[in-house]
């Protein structure tokens, strides 16, 4: 019998998934109605396109006959793949996707991250209240629904608080030259610059922004990768909304970090921890449902929790979006540290 299969983007996610599966099998696999089953991890990578994401999801479902889909991480891809999973009645858990469209109106699709609405809200609030910022600028990828929607949500929250927001757009086929847009934004002399963009892009943007003389504090979204920003001096002081942080207090988090280090020889990223939890939750849901039937497993996930794992504590309350905490961190040199923890619903 095949166990859950996963479509993973990113090495880190893969590492987390592999560790989770190894541990599961080492303890005898999943018990379904008293019979123990081995968990098999089927990995498919896809090109950085939504249609390929959904294609690979299709392949996993039709050709590999997976029982559970884990991923994709990036929201556009997750949204594309989610419709495939929903149609095929195969449960899907996207560990990191925060765009609401991923789970909206679907029975079989779940996430572990908190929604962009929350993200936008907490960033706006922090900037306005803590940093006492009154003018915010946002540079976002108009072609990327994640970036686009998150920018809009931030704007809505910040303006609701009483601030002013100016936005600038780019499209993801322009990965290198943002200065024209940045110039325009810098002219408004913002206090904070929100960059809800993918990793790599964000560091280029920060550098270019600084080079233009902008002094605004950068605000980052959960698409940022703080560990890789440790070598970007411009990133210091940026406030980042994150799904996960290694300093989270739960014992499971530190335990996971230790095991991950022992297995892979390096520190885990957020995607690793969240993917790890996704697989564990999927396995436990299958065990609880007592069957591999998609509908039953989906129902089991929908009522799952409170579950405390490597990625913190989550609790599903009947939809694909769980209750969990959100974390704001500040980048200081080589690492970032938590500044605020907010309960997200």
């Amino acid at each position: 019998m095949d166990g859950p299969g996963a479509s993973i983007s990113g090495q880190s996610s893969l590492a987390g998934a592999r560790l989770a599966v190894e541990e599961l099998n080492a303890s005898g696999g999943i018990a379904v109605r008293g019979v123990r089953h081995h968990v098999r991890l089927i990995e498919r990578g896809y090109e950085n396109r939504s249609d390929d994401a959904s294609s690979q999801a299709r392949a996993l479902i039709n050709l590999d006959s997976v029982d559970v889909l884990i991923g994709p991480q990036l929201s556009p891809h997750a949204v594309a793949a989610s419709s495939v999973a929903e149609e095929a009645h195969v449960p899907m858990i996207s560990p990191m996707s925060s765009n609401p469209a991923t789970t909206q109106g679907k029975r079989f699709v779940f996430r572990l991250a908190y929604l962009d609405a929350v993200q936008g809200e907490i960033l706006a609030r922090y900037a306005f209240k803590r940093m006492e910022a009154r003018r915010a600028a946002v540079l976002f990828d108009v072609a990327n629904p994640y970036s686009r929607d998150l920018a809009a949500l931030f704007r809505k929250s910040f303006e609701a608080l009483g601030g002013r927001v100016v936005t600038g757009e780019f499209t993801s086929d322009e990965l290198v030259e943002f200065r024209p847009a940045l110039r325009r934004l810098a002219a408004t002399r913002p206090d904070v610059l929100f960059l809800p963009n993918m990793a790599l892009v964000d560091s280029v943007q920060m550098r270019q922004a600084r080079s233009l003389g902008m002094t605004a504090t950068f605000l980052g979204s959960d698409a940022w990768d703080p560990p890789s920003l440790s070598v970007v001096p411009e990133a210091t002081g940026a406030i980042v909304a994150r799904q996960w942080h290694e300093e989270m207090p739960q014992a499971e988090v530190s335990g996971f970090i230790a095991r991950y280090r022992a297995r892979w020889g390096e520190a885990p990223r957020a995607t690793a921890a969240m993917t790890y939890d996704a697989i564990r939750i999927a396995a436990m849901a299958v065990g609880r449902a007592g069957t591999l039937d998609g509908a039953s497993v989906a129902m089991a996930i929908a009522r799952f929790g409170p579950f405390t794992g490597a990625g913190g504590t989550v609790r599903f309350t009947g939809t694909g979006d769980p209750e969990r905490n959100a974390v704001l961190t500040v980048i200081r040199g080589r690492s970032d540290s938590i500044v605020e923890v907010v309960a997200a619903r």
Partner: protein
Amino acid sequence: MTERSRSRLSPVRLATSFIGQSLRVRMTVAFGVAGGLTVVLVSGVSYERARRALRSVVTERLTGVADRRAVDVSRWITQQSDLVRFIAGIPSMTDGVPLLVSGRAATNGPDPVVQRRVTAVLDSARRAGVAVSELTVMSARGGRVLASTNPGEVGTYHVDDLYFREGLRGPFTQNFYPSHHLGRPTMTAAAPVRSPDGTVVAVLAAHLDLRQIEDIVEQKSGRMPIEVYLVDRFSDPVSADRFRRVDVRRGLHSLGIDSALSGHDGSGLYLNYAGVPVIGIYRWIPERELALIVESPQAAAFAPARNLLAVILSIGIGAVALMAVVAHRIAGHVASPILSLARSAERVAQGDLDVRATVATGDEVGFLAVSFNQMTHRLRKLVEDLNGQVAATMAALDALRENQALVQGIVDNSAMLVAVIDFDGQFVLVNRHFESLFARRREDILGRAVVEVLSERDAESLRQTVSAVHNGGEVAESEIIVSTPDGDRTFLSVSFPLRHADGAAYAVGIVASDITERQRAEAERRRLELQMQHAQKLESLGVLAGGVAHDFNNLLAAVHVNAELALAEAPGHVRQSIQQILVATRRASELTRQMLAYAGKASLERRTVDLNESVRDLLELAKATFSKKVELRMDMSPQPMWVLADSAQISQVVLNLLTNAAEAIGDRVGTVTIGTALVPHDQNGAVGDASRATTDVRFTVSDTGKGMSEETKRRIFEPFYTTKASGRGLGLAAVLGIVKSAGGRLSVSSVEGQGSTFEILLPSAEAPIEAGRGPISDPAMGAATGCVLVVDDEPMLRAVANRVLSRMGYEVIEAADGVEGLRLFKQNRERVSAVVLDMTMPGMDGAEVLRQIRQCDADVAVIVVSGYDARNTAVARSLDPAVEFLQKPFGIDDLVAAVTRGARVRA
């Protein structure tokens, strides 16, 4: 129902037995089976070949279809692509689109007018029959939708989509892919839109309407049912509706589909996605990343083959059935002589040997019939001979059986013991006597070893007998003792060997007669003989003793009387000696009396005697006999103890007992107790004429002497038995004789070491009228008158009597024998007062004389003098109660008293 009968009735068994039993049926069935197999083979092969042929035909057809459809699909796709390119190049587009792009840049939004115009172009293009579901124009930068046949698309970004990226570079058709945007799998043809100067400003993309593909694919072709469909690389059918999407959630799978998706082209027989057996062609169209499947159901495809099979089978079986019928007839024809022969054989088997088989043909079957007849003929003769032999044998057997029964009867009923034992020591035959003797049944004896039936000792002796016969082979006679349930019995057995016809011995026969009784009788006879001899010895002894005593008595009488006479006239110094003589003669006479008593011949002078008196008389003598150490105790009854007995004998008895008592004590201190008493008469044991007495006189003598052993007690009354050194052993014998003849009983009790008690019981008598004092009455001498006749053959006795009687005053006449005595008596009858008559005389004996005298004179006194002749005495007494008895030897006083009494009576 049992296992066997159940199986017997099973259809298979019935069938096989039925077939087996009938020749015709077997032949027919064989033919039928052969024919049937042939038919089956032929039809099978035909079917298979037909199938193969059909398969290749269908496959060829399907392949043709597949080829054509594949071409059609490709062409159609190419057509769409070309169409899109064409549209992208029309002036309306090349003019309008750049404006849209630039307008956007300027006013932050597309010019609505231009947009409308471009949209109209798109719409008309679509309507014109192009198989497109949506046409979209996207700006080259960012992929933003500038215009679309789907208004909702405007403003969205497609920078991510492959067709956009590729479309920027040139015409591109994105192969079947799941479109999130459309919500279903689709194909998209894209082409760049160039501004007049040739730069790419936008991409025109057309999402194709796949229903047209369906139609292409679904064209019917011929009358064969064919299913043609396309499957993408994810196993999803291109036209999902047709497959009812719900069922294909995880894609379509079958051998054909999976093979095609793995890049192979081919054909085969397999189950399609719905499990239906099909003939299928599968093709992979790599440039389109599509699998083309053409399938036709096998059921329909192979129907002709099946039909062929059915036809061949039915015709074939029909033909075979027909031929079977013909074969049946032919077989019948062939089989009929065989069957007729079989029937004849059956009759023979049932016992009819007179049957003859018909010889119908000249072939092997006819020859068989001829041989059959010869066989039955010979068989018949054989049977007759055998029957004769059997009858003879049966008769012989009967005779033998009768003989056997006869022998068995004799053996069984023999009063002798008959047994046959083989050389293994086992019983082969026993008769009834044997059975009853050992209280066992034949069945428990035959076949068993001798040791199991008889005791060890008997078995051993029998074994010796058997082995003796076995080894010696001769008849042997022996006496054997056998223990039976009734005790040991003695048999005289004859054992002889039993031989087979060849003379070899195989067993031992034993015939034994029971001689136990005979032996016992023998033993008894011998014992009695011995006893009689003993008795005779005693008797002769008695006779001897009697004879001696008698003669001796006579002599003693003479001595005694003369001694008494001498004593009367003897001078003083001689008197002592003469008294000694008298004592000695008295003692001698005691002795002879004892002997006579023992011999039973003592003449009895029965008178009523007082036992006490007798005892008192003897007391002095007794005391003299006893030693000083012996105390004498008296326990006498104060009354007189009258008994009817001879006083002398009583005295003898008393004296003997006292003597014995004293001697028992011997030299030691002891006590002798004498007792007399009257006791009630004990009827038991009384003998003789004393049975009327009601009381007995008991006389006991006890001593505390050494007592007697059992053996001594038994023998003390035997004559000549004595434990004393002296003595002749006659004392107690005499005592016993006396007591018995007096009608009494004598018993002795003794405990060795303590003492003995002799007890005599005598019937008591009435007191005499006259208490005569016995022999010592003293009539006056010389006072008598009259004449006495003395008849005695002894001259000495005559002389003695003469003197005594003369002294008494009588005149004495002597006669020497009976005849003379009678003569003298008759001569002197008046004068004779008494007659002294000796009973034992030669010639006429005393009894006769007495009779004759009585004839003459009835009441003359007769004094009978007897020696030992008790019988004669009894006779005499019975004749004449007035007779007086005088026992020899008698004393003078006795004679005097007797004469006096007799004379007195007379007088």
